[in-house]
């Protein structure tokens, strides 16, 4: 048992820290926020060619770097810490796990290959209900093929994606039944994409409308006609762990910039960092950031084991819900306290803490908020006969 980074993992983390802190300064984030897609295409090109991060968790057999979720978490902790604006999370945390978990080998070669070449990909799974993950898109078989109809909302980086994995449901199916996953090119006839204005401007969401979109059976992930609900759950669990990594980084940075501020700010003749009311708040923030980090690293190890086939989907679900529930609240707590510690300047646009506050709220609701994940754990604990 060795629950710490190896030297190689430390190097990956340090490289990510050095790169992101340089390219994702406050000024860079603010200029990215003003761009139509919410990120700089040049920077994404640099990330996907020089850093090659989209290849991190793609197996070597598929020409990726063959690293695991621990390395991915170490990297995304840094991108979250500096609010990096890019389609990296959509591509590596949503699309890549969908392809790895559900696609055939030939599909993996083709679509992971497109990602390796720098294409942006994402996952469209959410319906009109904002809680949970109800699917509104319907798949109907006709003589010509399969038609998709309906709307998928909250699609991360949907407006700039090259292709998307769409979760759909058979026309009369409900609940857990009849779920299927499809590769869709975003420029296909019958796909309309509308950018949604977002409170957190560092992270863009879109609405995808499918209007009699015609698909061939080869576009179905895995190519089989079985319900893929359980696969979608595991995909969302893997995605939630990656999002937790960004939350941990954000929680840490919200603490760090707040501590730096209170050490400078003088009132009543001394820095406010010397008052216990301030110190105790910061100590609580550190407890949250460190504990979220522990839950993340554990979940990342579990994700690797899941992808190797050595643990069950239920174990993955438990680890994902633990880290997503805790990290969501940790980041929000730290960002909220951070504003309070900044005093009046905390609510100005000029200071960065407000950006973390908005990001914290955005990530909290993404892929299920804390109470959603707690209820999921409560089902495991309370609604089964076996007590673990």
């Amino acid at each position, binding site marked *: *048992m*060795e629950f*710490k980074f190896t030297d190689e993992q430390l190097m990956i983390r340090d490289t990510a820290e050095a790169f992101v802190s340089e390219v994702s300064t406050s000024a860079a984030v603010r200029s990215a926020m003003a761009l139509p897609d919410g990120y700089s295409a040049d920077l994404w090109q640099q990330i996907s060619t020089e850093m090659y991060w989209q290849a991190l968790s793609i197996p070597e057999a598929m020409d990726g770097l063959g690293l695991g979720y621990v390395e991915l978490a170490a990297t995304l902790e840094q991108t979250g810490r500096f609010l990096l604006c890019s389609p990296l999370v959509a591509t590596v945390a949503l699309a890549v796990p969908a392809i790895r978990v559900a696609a055939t080998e030939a599909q993996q070669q083709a679509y992971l290959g497109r990602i390796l070449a720098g294409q942006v990909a994402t996952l469209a799974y959410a319906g009109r209900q904002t809680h949970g993950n109800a699917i509104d898109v319907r798949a109907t078989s006709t003589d010509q093929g399969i038609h998709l109809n309906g709307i998928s909302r909250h699609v991360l980086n949907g407006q700039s994606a090259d292709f998307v994995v769409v979760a759909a449901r058979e026309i009369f199916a409900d609940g857990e039944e009849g779920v299927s996953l499809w590769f869709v090119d975003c420029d296909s006839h019958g796909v309309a994409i509308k950018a949604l204005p977002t409170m957190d401007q560092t992270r863009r969401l879109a609405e995808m409308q499918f209007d009699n979109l015609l698909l061939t059976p080869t576009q179905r992930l895995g190519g089989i006609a079985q319900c893929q609900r359980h696969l979608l759950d595991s995909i969302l669990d893997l995605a939630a762990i990656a999002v937790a990594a960004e939350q941990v980084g954000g929680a840490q940075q919200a603490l760090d910039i707040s501590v730096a501020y209170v050490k400078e700010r003088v009132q009543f003749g001394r820095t406010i960092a010397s008052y216990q009311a301030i110190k105790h708040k910061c100590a609580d923030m*550190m407890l949250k950031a460190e504990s979220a980090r*522990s839950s993340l690293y554990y979940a990342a*190890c579990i994700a690797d084991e899941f992808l190797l086939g050595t643990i069950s989907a239920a174990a993955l679900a438990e680890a994902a819900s633990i880290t997503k529930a805790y990290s969501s609240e940790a980041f929000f707590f730290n960002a909220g306290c951070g504003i309070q510690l900044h005093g009046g300047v905390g609510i100005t646009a000029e200071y960065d803490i407000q950006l973390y506050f908005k990001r914290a709220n955005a990530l909290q609701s993404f892929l299920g908020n804390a109470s959603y994940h*707690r209820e999921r*754990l409560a089902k495991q604990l309370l*609604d089964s006969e076996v007590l673990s």
Partner: protein
Amino acid sequence: MKLRFSAADEAFRVEVADWLRDNLCGEFDVIRFRGGPGDEHSFVDERKAWERKLGDAGWTCIGWPKEWGGRAASIEQQVIFNEEYARAGGPGRIGHIGETLMGPTLIAYGSDAQKANYLPSIRSGDAIWCQGYSEPSAGSDLANVKTKAVFDEAAQVWHISGQKVWTSLAHESHYCFVVARTDLQAKGHKGLGFFMVAMDQPGVTIRPIEQLTGTSEFNEVFFDNAICTPGDIVGQPGEGWQVAMALLGFERGVSTLGQQMLFQNEFNDIVRLAKANGADRDPVLRQRIAEAHIGLRIMRYNTLRVLSGSDEGELSAEGMIYKLYWSSWHRNLGKLAMDVMGADSEILSAQPYELNRLQSMFLFTRADTIYGGTNQIQRNLIAERALGMPREPRGNS
């Protein structure tokens, strides 16, 4: 980063579990899941006998060097031992202060004679130790001790006088380690000595403190010219603070994983109760039960990080939060237990004041956030040492 234990460690796990299954039974059945904080007063004689049984089989002090009778067990093996011990319902270790605090301190700082005098009886499970740090005016401000140690040149002994408080198990202990002032002119952490004092002598009086649970595991200990030989001071006079702080450094160790298994047992009791009495259908209680589960799992992951060593090799941030984390979590678990019990939480098992385990846990968890450094002191330490924030100005005392 890897979570799996080696095959050799898993074999060790089986060895521990088998031994406990074959030995924690019969006369020792009554002490399964007993003892420990909040229940320290229960089955003392049986737990002392159990301590000796562990000692005979080589299951005390397994992390100590072989030279002093330990097994030089790796961190992984100590983790496994503590987990299996708690899983089997092993009773709260009445010898834990000797094994986890006094012993390691002597191994690191004691003279050869002190090691030879004191380590074997801790290892065998015969000697019980207690801790003499806190005083009425030295609680959070631990350095403000008033207990005096005066050296009598003629008799060649130290005379110790003063009052200690919150001393767990004092009435069951053979020895107490006492921080006392050797330089009466000095203040704060200067001029202190660290003494090993025999409890069975005329100069030592013990008075139990009745707690909110109606039971007593804490005591007041009065020293009135208690005698201590010159060989029983660890370090030099004036070095007591350094030794006392080093001792506390041994406190955050692998035993915390055993503590977590006890917490897991309590949590499982609450889940069982919720399923039985319908509390599992209350959506708010479901959230709180899940939250407790999340909190306990993360406590374990925090500990695994601490035990694996920090990435930078210094006192790690995750190590500094441990006390604040578990005490707050356990306090919340206590209230959750009462809320899952519902109206029955108010009804005791028997007259005059017999609490069931969950009620006792609920009340005693209010001590968790106070002893061993209050939550407020923990937050000061985190802010000052981990976050580099300034100390608050001190008053004049």
